[in-house]
């Protein structure tokens, strides 16, 4: 009889858990020899499968044949039937079925710990949400661990293209826990990480490259609040409530005047 946590351990192994659940699984595995063994087995199997089963890729002859076939395809004049059928493939019934099934099953089977969400539109918003999700996976959150702004801020120099405002607001409930570098809008963005109760708030910042700011939005359960100070665009991302998120945004905005400037000339 397998341990009741085995599916969650598997999801942890596959990188599908948020930070809180991942931490719980790690704690559980320390105490559960069965789940520790499962993790080892999963890794062994993955290594075996990834070190060369099956064909590496399409044979060159097939590739050539396909390119020739494409050459003989006449560009469709007007909407063609196949295009119609494939239009917005995500809204096709089978796809919709899978997605609605996801929501239903997640609740029914108590697997709401998975990081899920619908496809996103604005590539920047998508990048931000992906960065947030990635940051919540084990060991991705923080590259410099510090509650001291005098440690975090210099760390960004040379690692990111910007020097954002960094401050600890522990007294107001937003504890500075560290920072890391990320890649957004073709730049090395700075990320300052705060904790607010059990929630993680990532504050991304990068040099403004386009006119308007994206609108504040909610994706995959994460709120994204955008603002601009000087030449820097900021985005705070978290699964806290809007009020809590905006509390931090206000604190940073109050501090930020005159501080946010591109770090490199």
């Amino acid at each position, binding site marked *: 009889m397998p341990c009741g946590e085995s599916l969650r351990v598997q*999801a942890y192994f596959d990188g599908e858990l948020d930070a809180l659940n991942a931490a719980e699984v790690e704690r559980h595995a320390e105490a559960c020899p069965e789940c520790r063994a499962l993790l080892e087995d999963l890794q062994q199997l993955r290594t075996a499968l990834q070190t060369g*089963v099956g064909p590496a890729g399409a044979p060159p002859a097939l*590739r050539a044949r396909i390119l020739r076939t494409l050459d003989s395809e006449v560009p469709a004049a007007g909407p063609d039937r196949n295009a*119609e059928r494939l239009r917005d493939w995500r809204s096709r019934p089978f796809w919709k079925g899978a997605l609605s099934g996801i929501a239903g099953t997640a609740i029914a089977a108590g*697997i709401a710990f998975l990081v899920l969400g619908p496809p996103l539109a604005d*590539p920047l918003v998508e990048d931000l949400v992906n960065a947030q999700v990635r940051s919540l996976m084990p060991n991705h959150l923080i590259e410099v661990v510090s509650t001291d702004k005098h440690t975090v801020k210099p760390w960004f120099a040379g690692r990111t293209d910007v020097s954002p405002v960094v401050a600890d607001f522990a007294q107001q409930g937003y504890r500075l826990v560290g920072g890391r570098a990320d890649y957004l809008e073709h730049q090395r963005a700075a990320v300052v990480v705060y904790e607010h109760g059990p929630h993680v708030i990532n504050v991304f910042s990068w040099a403004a490259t386009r006119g308007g700011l994206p609108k504040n939005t909610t994706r995959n359960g994460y709120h994204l609040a955008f603002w601009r100070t000087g030449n820097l665009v900021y985005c705070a991302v978290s699964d806290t409530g809007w009020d809590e998120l905006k509390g931090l945004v206000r604190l940073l905005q109050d501090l930020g005047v005159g501080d946010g400037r591109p770090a490199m000339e």
Partner: protein
Amino acid sequence: MDDRRRRFEALVLPHLDAAYRLARWLSRSPGDADDVVQEAILRAYRGFDALRGTDVKAWLLTIVRNCHWTALKQQQRRAHVPLPEEHDVPALIATTPEPESASIRRDEERTFDRLLSALPEEQREILVLREIEEMDYRAIAAIVNVPIGTVMSRLARARAALRARWLQEAQGEPHAVR
């Protein structure tokens, strides 16, 4: 080359290898895999203008899977023969004798080819998507068209089954020490 074709080659063709691997593991026959992939790429090209999603790889693999099933049904209708039993299909890579110098590692790889080939299709498919193509649960759920809870339980079963066969093999036929 027109702009549309260029975009297609830039966005979709990088996933041709993934498409081929999936087709190969699904059909377990190089010839069938070629046909399935060619048909899938053609369908993708025709429907490319309407592609709105961002996960091109998942989109293409969904088409590959559909093409595989269509081809399989046509074959069955034509031949009126039942599908081969899951257990007596040949390994994906023919087991020609290896030279003496072949490493144990090479044996291991062939073992896994054979073990994976012998799994039921739905287990084989989910293992390929997760471990070889490294798709996340959400993408797998969309490609295979099952709820995400099913992805998780099927994946767990598939891993357990493959591991069980692997252990069986290791106990039954220990490697000759060279």
